[in-house]
């Protein structure tokens, strides 16, 4: 109680630093996330080899002191490629989360708040969810033209409907609660009610969905690249590395294992941090942190 009362956060019960100290899993997640992001950002300086440098003499070498993660079928250094690929993969992942969250929240709030918009929006959402994700993404990229930013836009559109559905359902519940009625009785404007009352109470599902979308987006980007509608093949991404390394899974497993590990670590760490943030934003839970 005292900790909550003295907390400087505008809302939410605890500060993020306090959270890191008290919750070891969140600290663990934050450290991994920082390492992964830092490695990707600093890759031009820390990569021991150029990611595209071929060395046919060193094909399919297992991990060693020269090649930490081994080499691939063209003799390229897997470690260098993994950290360079992190730039594109993480950018795609985070950007897709942002695009789909913005779209999903706007659509969900409008559908949940205004009865007249509910029918049309719900129908569009249902129609979009009827398509398999990857098929919808392919057709969108095909229509927009293949480029990294169009892949982000397409995947953002693909993942927006499921978030919109969750937001819509929760909005329908929250807008009938007495505290929303109280705000209406006070003459608080609808956009403010949406922000202060509805959105603030939706922080948890948005964070949880955001981490799912992040993981899915990185894998979907690999699928798109594999099919030739993703980012340019010359740019390594974790997804393309996994799909290209698949054919050597039995003989040279490290080629796909290390980019796979990078995906797993970044998703896991993001999820741990997301959980922590969710609890921090909920005053009822943050008291017990």
């Amino acid at each position, binding site marked *: *109680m005292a900790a*909550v*009362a003295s907390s400087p956060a505008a*809302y*939410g*019960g605890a500060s993020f630093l306090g959270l890191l100290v008290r919750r070891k899993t969140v600290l663990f997640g934050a450290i991994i996330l920082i390492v992964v992001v830092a490695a990707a950002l600093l890759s031009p300086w820390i990569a021991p080899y150029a990611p595209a440098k071929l060395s046919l003499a060193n094909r399919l070498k297992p991990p060693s002191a020269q090649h930490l993660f081994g080499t691939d079928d063209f003799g390229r250094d897997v470690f260098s490629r993994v950290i360079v690929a992190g730039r594109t993969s993480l950018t795609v992942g985070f950007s897709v989360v942002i695009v789909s969250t913005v779209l999903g929240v706007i659509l969900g709030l409008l559908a949940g708040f205004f009865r007249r918009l509910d029918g049309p929006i719900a129908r569009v959402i249902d129609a979009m969810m009827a398509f398999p994700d990857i098929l919808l993404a392919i057709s969108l990229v095909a229509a927009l033209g293949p480029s990294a930013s169009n892949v982000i836009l397409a995947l953002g559109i693909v993942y927006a409907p499921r978030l919109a559905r969750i937001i819509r359902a929760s909005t329908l519940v929250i807008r009938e*609660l*007495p*505290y929303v*009625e*109280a*705000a*209406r*009785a*006070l*003459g*608080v*404007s609808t956009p*403010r009610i949406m922000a*202060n*009352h509805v959105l*603030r*109470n939706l*922080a948890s599902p948005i964070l949880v969905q955001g981490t799912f979308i992040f993981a899915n987006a990185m894998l979907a980007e690999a699928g798109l690249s594999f099919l030739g509608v993703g980012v340019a093949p010359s740019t390594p991404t974790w997804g393309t590395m996994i799909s290209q390394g698949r054919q050597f899974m039995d003989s040279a497993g490290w080629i796909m294992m290390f980019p796979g590990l990078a995906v797993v670590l970044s998703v896991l760490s993001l999820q741990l941090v997301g959980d922590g943030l969710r609890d921090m*934003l*909920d*005053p*009822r839970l943050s*008291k017990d942190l």
Partner: protein
Amino acid sequence: MSATPAQDSAPLLRVEGLKKHFPGRNGGVVRAVEDVTFSVRRGTITGLVGESGSGKTTAGRCLLRLVEPTGGKAVFDGVDLFGLSPHEMKAYRRRLQIIFQDPYSSLNPRMRVSGILGEALDAHGLARGKQRPARIAELLTMVGLSPEHARRFPHEFSGGQRQRIGIARALAVEPDFIVADEPVSALDVSVQAQILNLMQDLQQSLGLTILFVAHDLTVVEYLCDDVVVMYLGRIMESGPSRSVYARPRHPYTKALLSTAPVPDPDFKRERLILNGDIPSPLDPPSGCVFRTRCPYAGDACAEIVPPLDPIGPSHASACIRQTELVAAGIL
């Protein structure tokens, strides 16, 4: 509390023919509130009582346009609230406020008390800048909380304290009129009295006019100057609390009063027990809506919708057999 003479001849609020119909299943119409007419005098507390499903809460919400009424008028200080555009209504939102029944769901769990009260101030541009913390502290003190409570979240308070925050929020905009929607029904009996006393004190010190929606008649008798009794969306009886309680002039009021406990073990009274439940407002009985449960219902009761007939100074009852029943010594 005794009935005080009206300071002003015109009532602060006059509700005329208020109707609220909801679309029901299979194209039916739920007549939640039907032809409700009453007045609330300035500076008094009027009780709006009835069982659950009587439409009393819906009627209260209609007055604030939280539920859009189907028909009727609500003349507040000379202006029909139902005729105002949403923009014009916003100015009146400062003058009419509401206190909710459930102290848990009526406060946003993610906002601090300062944020909850601050939102009320912001909505009307009150107490900006440096005055804001002072005003929030003043509001909290008014409702018997301490200024330090402003930093806390709703879950850190008890039900009674939360209800005090709800009252402070309503008072933040300095309203003239408050709809109190069963403000003590969700509270422990020991806490109920504290909240009722607080409301009575605030009503007197701030000169508020209150419409007190309740199902508990003992609470209403203690607090209210006037009382309006509703059943299935219609008014059965209305009048000054003193005369309604001393001498109910409608079988339904009499039945309600006979179920209220009296703190006297030797007290014996004729009980008027009602059987069954309140009928569905989707298909209300013809004529008098109360006739299906009224022990004195006659054939004529199924034919005529009883008008609210005046029977004394500002006392009215909607029963066509009222004179007969009085003559027979039943009422």
